[in-house]
């Protein structure tokens, strides 16, 4: 039985893998940046399939909206756009290393008994994840209905603060790096 979810999954899989291959193969760096945006959008689609809608929105905002634009800026500001994506001399080692890793990961993914939770529980997880985004309107205030925010500020408050410190450091470092010499 092939449901709509499976069709969407296979379409997204083909699109994301083809676009990712394009990113690393296409010679024109500008086109490869645009293909990278396609990869990001396909991954956002995967997040929607996994009922992680909030992450999909974050993915579109940050990756498609900000990081792709940053990459396009960087490509435009540096020269040799047309022939910028040349391969280096490590083709054969690179291909063999990534192929070996790919085979290892696929074997591990197929052969391991992940003990996935049953379908009914998957539906419960979906409901919880969706509810965490929509705020659980009308269902009373049972624990966890505020979802990601509660986890971020509660259980993961220390990594949250560390990440904010990291962002501050990145901000200052970016300013220091981008400042032109002599001024």
């Amino acid at each position, binding site marked *: 039985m092939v449901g709509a979810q499976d069709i969407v999954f296979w379409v997204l899989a083909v699109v994301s893998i083809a676009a990712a291959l394009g990113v690393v193969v296409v010679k024109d760096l500008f086109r490869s940046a645009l293909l990278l945006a396609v990869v990001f959008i396909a991954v956002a689609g995967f997040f929607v399939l996994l009922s992680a809608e909030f992450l999909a929105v974050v993915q579109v905002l940050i990756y498609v909206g900000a990081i792709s634009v*940053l*990459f396009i800026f960087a*490509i435009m500001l540096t020269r040799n756009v047309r022939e910028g994506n040349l391969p280096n001399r490590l083709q054969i080692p690179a291909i063999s290393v990534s192929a070996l890793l790919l085979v290892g990961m696929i074997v591990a993914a197929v052969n391991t008994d992940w003990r996935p939770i049953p379908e009914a529980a*998957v539906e419960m997880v979906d409901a919880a994840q969706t509810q965490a985004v929509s705020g659980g309107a009308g269902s009373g205030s049972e624990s966890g209905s505020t979802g990601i925010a509660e986890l971020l500020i509660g259980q993961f408050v220390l990594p949250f603060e560390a990440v904010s410190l990291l962002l501050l450091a990145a901000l200052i470092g970016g300013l220091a790096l981008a400042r032109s010499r002599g001024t």
Partner: protein
Amino acid sequence: MSLESMLIVAAILFAIGLYGALARSNVIAVLMSIEIMFNAVNLTVVAFARYVAPLALREEIGSVLTGQVFAIFVITVAAAEIALGLGIVFAMYRNTESVTLTEANQLRH
């Protein structure tokens, strides 16, 4: 759509990103490949969070979101890394007029 198929797609994306990071000579292309790898890892984390993780589901339903919180942290770190990486690329381009990795050898002499 199952956990295994999702993991395999993420593994293929990761391998493609790894190949790109190892075999390209342009710094910006390498950074883009690293972004593909970040996305593959996020996909894996979220897939695990949906299909495997919630043994604690009965105690607290919010715990199924832990994987998504991890993915948010990964996205944040990736954004910071890209901002700094592109800053370094610009500085390198100002100094050497090039964004080729093999020409970033100013510390060697």
